[in-house]
């Protein structure tokens, strides 16, 4: 497949590993923002070939991981209302809330559907005029345009039985929050290439300048990630806190203006709570007030949302790069992908799930 095999080329990858070894002269800590990158790093064993002194920490870029517990509890409660069809993406359905996951709600009789695209939920609304279709819209800047497009279509077509629970999050404010947190060890970031495809890389310039950290827009395959690391280390070693785009096959400086305009038409920037981390100012998207009729949180009054997080879960620290999954006493014991305590153990993009699946060493 084009854009897959060539970025997994073993020889090219090994040459980049050698280049990385030559480039590192001092200890550095680099955070990969995106859970897709974390997954790729562990799946291909990149963490095992890094030169001594170079440490990778996993960032908060896993949409289901950072969706606040109360949002999941609200979705579960709304799904339980008569006449409601609740739709969301695959791995969102398994995330544990205080009163179980959406899949558990389905087994109790709620009508919960897995969709691959937000437009599918729109089609469900058209096909079920006597039902209320509620779409749980989560994700970063990547999924926001598609979800905005779906609700825009509902507004334009006057489709009143479609609404969204919007829990979108934005990457640059989260990066700034991580850099501002006490104990932060991050020297540079690999930014998520597909987020940059939508936003461009210019929004990162302010973060890089204010905090003095290099940021490299990076892809997801082994060659991409190793190349991003070579670039990040080169910038660190020369004391150059710039934004560099190494995902040139998809990212333009200003991103995708049509996608940005669609997001801007439907959503406004708001403060947002991140699961395990807390509230980050101006880090989320919510439906604009003029579209309140399509806002499920306003449309369905659901009381008694008192979320309770399992005490032993350290997902918040993992998501900020302050701890590794294996530091958690519950990891692999009380908490496994079959019995997840936190969302980071659920999604294939979650750091704990990636560690559980790929991170165990082969016994010698």
């Amino acid at each position, binding site marked *: *497949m084009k854009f*897959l*095999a060539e970025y997994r080329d073993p020889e090219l990858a*090994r040459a980049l590993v050698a280049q990385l070894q030559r480039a590192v002269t001092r200890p550095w800590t680099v955070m990969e923002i995106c859970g*897709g990158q974390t997954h790729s790093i562990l799946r291909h*064993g990149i963490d095992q070939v890094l030169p001594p002194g170079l440490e990778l920490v996993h960032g908060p870029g896993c949409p289901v991981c950072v969706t606040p517990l109360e949002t999941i509890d609200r979705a579960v409660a709304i799904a339980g209302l008569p006449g409601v069809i609740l739709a969301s993406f695959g791995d*969102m359905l398994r995330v544990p809330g205080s009163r179980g996951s959406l899949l558990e709600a389905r087994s109790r009789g709620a009508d919960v559907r897995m969709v691959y695209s937000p437009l599918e939920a729109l089609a469900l609304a058209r096909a079920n005029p006597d039902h209320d279709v509620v779409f749980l819209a989560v994700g970063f800047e990547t999924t926001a345009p598609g979800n905005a497009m779906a609700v825009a279509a509902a507004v334009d077509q006057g489709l009143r039985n479609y609404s969204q629970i919007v829990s979108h999050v934005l990457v640059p404010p989260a990066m700034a929050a991580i850099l501002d947190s006490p104990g932060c060890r991050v020297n540079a970031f690999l930014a998520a290439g597909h987020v940059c495809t939508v936003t461009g890389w210019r929004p990162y310039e302010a973060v890089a300048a204010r905090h003095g950290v290099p940021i490299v827009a990076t892809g997801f395959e082994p060659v991409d990630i190793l190349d991003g690391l070579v670039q990040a280390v080169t910038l660190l070693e020369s004391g150059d806190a710039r934004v560099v785009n190494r995902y040139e096959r998809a990212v333009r400086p200003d991103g995708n203006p049509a996608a940005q305009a669609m997001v801007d038409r439907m959503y406004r920037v708001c403060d947002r709570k991140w699961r395990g981390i807390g509230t980050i100012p101006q880090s989320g998207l919510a439906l604009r007030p003029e579209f309140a009729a399509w806002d499920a949180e306003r449309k369905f009054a659901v009381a008694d949302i008192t979320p309770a997080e399992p005490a032993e879960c350290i997902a918040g620290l993992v998501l900020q790069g302050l701890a590794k999954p294996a530091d958690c006493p519950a990891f692999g014991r009380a908490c496994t992908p079959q019995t997840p305590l936190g969302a980071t153990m659920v999604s294939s993009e979650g750091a704990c799930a990636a560690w559980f699946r790929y991170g*165990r060493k082969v*016994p010698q």
Partner: protein
Amino acid sequence: MSDRADVTGFSCPLPRLDYDTVQMAHGAGGRLSQDLFEKLILPRFASPELAPREDGALLDLPPGRVAFSTDTFVVTPLFFPGGDIGKLAVCGTVNDVAMMGALPRALSVAFVLEEGWPLADFHRVLCSMEATAQQAGVRIVTGDTKVVGRGQCDGIYINTSGLGVVPEGRRLGVARIAAGDAVLVSGPVGDHGTAILTARAGLSVQTELASDCATLNGLVEALLACGADVKALRDPTRGGLAAVLNEFAAGARVGITLEDGAVPVRATVAGVCEMLGLDPLHAACEGRLVAVVSGADADHGLAALRAHALGSEAAVIGRVVPAHPGVVALRTGLGVERVLDMPLGEQLPRIC
């Protein structure tokens, strides 16, 4: 893709029936049940064992140990590129019997039909079962049909059970796997699982991908006839290649080392799986086998598989090792080994 039947130009024309769809009475044992059996089912499964219409079949089996297996088939959509639920139901059980080293002889078939489901679709499934059973050289000798109310099942569920006879002298089993053996796969993995996923309504990914669904008893005989010391056979259905290799490693208390680059995966399968966040090594096959062969016979076994139409893309993918008993290690392109685990239940597509 439509999952409605298109019987125009089909080799077995739909018989004239009083109803177009399944009625509750079709499962009630009366006139309509008889009609359904005589007009639709019996003509497709004509066999000397079924013809007397007794409560069961009487079989004359050649000497040898009898292998016996059963499976129930539930799939959405019912008709998909490369097959349908009927073909799948025959292939699945024939293959399970063949993996025991047995020559499959007879199948039982039980249908659960949904009230209101088009009989033209049922007929299409029956034709497909007839063709697949003929191809595999097995006879359908007994069966049953029940009907459930509309909404209580998804069109049709099928259970098949199969019997086969293991010729004298064949010894296949996980317990025979030992360090030094080679692991072979008969073709690219993940075609069936990925084809089903892309055929489902809602996932608007268009590919040329078809299920690999096929009966493997011919391929098994070709491999066993070549004289290679074949230790164990298994077809990587649910859970895919990763599940089978973990079963082998755990069952024989050996380690298995797999070369990531050596496992054949079609570019389309790799691409679709990458997009959805799924792993081709966890995706189901319905027409592939995994063989553990004595290390000295690896090339010989590979040549025998490749000489057969269903094994032309076979490959040696790994070795059985004395280290890390019970663990399957995957060597990545970077030369790093990591654990290849059992898949964890249902694979769910990721968000972005």
